[in-house]
């Protein structure tokens, strides 16, 4: 047998890149939710966080363009991830009907989790794009008041709420599936594999619940600030002791 024959390496690369981009995005969102939730600590904490990401503590002045740059990078990674993941979507009615019937009749936990990935992933084509476009074009409109105004007065909260549910679920389930797909944390014995998977699933649900709660509370806080502050939409926050 000829051992040097040509092989098409693209399927291997696509599979790997899908997982890698998914992993990067999951890491990103796990940081993102925590950072934006600094509003739960105080306005000043969130303000400091904003300044940090604008590079204030590195350059001595704020560069919101850093946020634009980061958001563009995230959008690009999402586009790559979505493009590759599209391979796995049912692409015609026959496939859709067949997989839907399979999911319902098999009533199998991990198969159903995949369905959630497809639904939330599809939703984020639209939800995440809107959010990222705002971040790319208006990076200087982030802060305790500016963000709250966008959430409340700008009527972004329904979108953010849907996005929050989609992204946290998608990232949580995605990380769990990534672990299984590539064989991390496998039990040594086959008979323990199912227990291990059940354990991973519990951890996954705990992480999803934690992030959802933090995210919902943070969103509620932004809405609260936004509505209380609504009469002065557009006003920027200045921490005590810092001159305008």
């Amino acid at each position, binding site marked *: 047998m000829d*051992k040097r024959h040509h*092989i*098409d390496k693209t399927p*291997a690369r696509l599979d790997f890149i899908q997982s890698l981009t998914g992993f990067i995005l999951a890491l990103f969102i796990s940081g993102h939710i925590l950072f934006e939730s600094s509003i739960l600590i105080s306005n000043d904490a969130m303000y400091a966080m904003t300044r940090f990401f604008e590079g204030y503590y590195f350059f001595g002045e704020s560069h919101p363009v850093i946020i634009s740059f980061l958001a563009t990078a995230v959008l690009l990674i999402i586009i790559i991830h979505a493009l590759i993941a599209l391979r796995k979507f049912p692409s015609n009615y026959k496939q859709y009907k*067949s997989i839907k*019937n399979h999911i319902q009749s*098999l009533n199998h936990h991990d*198969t159903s989790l*995949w369905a959630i990935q497809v639904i939330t992933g599809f939703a984020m084509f639209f939800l995440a794009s809107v959010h990222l476009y705002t971040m790319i074009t208006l990076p200087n409109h982030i802060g305790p008041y500016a963000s709250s105004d966008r959430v409340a007065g700008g009527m972004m909260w329904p979108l953010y709420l849907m996005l929050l549910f989609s992204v946290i679920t998608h990232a949580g389930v995605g990380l769990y599936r990534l672990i299984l797909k590539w*064989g991390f944390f496998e039990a040594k014995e086959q008979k323990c594999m199912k227990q291990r998977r059940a354990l991973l699933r519990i951890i996954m649900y705990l992480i999803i619940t934690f992030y959802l709660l933090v995210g919902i509370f943070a969103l509620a806080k932004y809405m609260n600030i936004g509505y209380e502050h609504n009469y002065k939409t557009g006003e920027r926050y200045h921490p005590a002791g810092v001159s305008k």
Partner: protein
Amino acid sequence: MSKERVLKISILRYDPHVKGDKPRMETFEVTEAPGMTLYIALNDIRKHIDSSLKFDFVCRAGICGSCSMLINGKPALACSTLTAKLGEEITLAPLPTFELIGDLSIYTGNWMRGLNERLSTWIHNEEKIDTDTLEEKMEPELAEEIYELDRCIECGCCVAGCGTMQMNDNFLGAVGLNKIARYQLDPRDKRSDEDYYELVGDEDGVFGCMTLLGCEDVCPKNLPLQSKIAYLRRQMVKIGK
């Protein structure tokens, strides 16, 4: 002792070879006996209620893989399914994907043969075998690992439990991927990494697998399908990087 249960077994009846036959559900009542398996229940039905009911059995001990069917929507072997573990109402249907002979009887043989031919599931070794010399030794651990994967009975449960298969008829399924994992382990098989990649390194192979793990959860032989597919995926990514 608790009262005897009367099982209501609903079976999807259809014979594609009978002109004008239409798929329909038929329900049979069977009095449960201690230690009853679906194999016994189905034979009971055929013997006492409807002799035209078609279903397959050979070994009735979970070894031959003939009696795989959808039991309440989940692929399993009828002979190793105790009715005591099921409710009073049981639904049976033939495994999808495979050619239907009639009722619960399916023809897995031609599908499996096609798969084995496609993957060349035999040892590839061009050296001439000298039957007068001793075989090369193999570590017991390795032999056991290979044997473990060789326990596959080709019942088709993993194929029926696979979501990918629903959308891609050409997918190899866990049964095919498991076989390649088995031959790749075997030092007697001289196929190169590239040869294996050519067999499973695409979306009909390991990269089509979406890790829904239906296969792992329905395999009646408890084969390590999840970990072997993950292993194969890592191997193929290494080759394809």
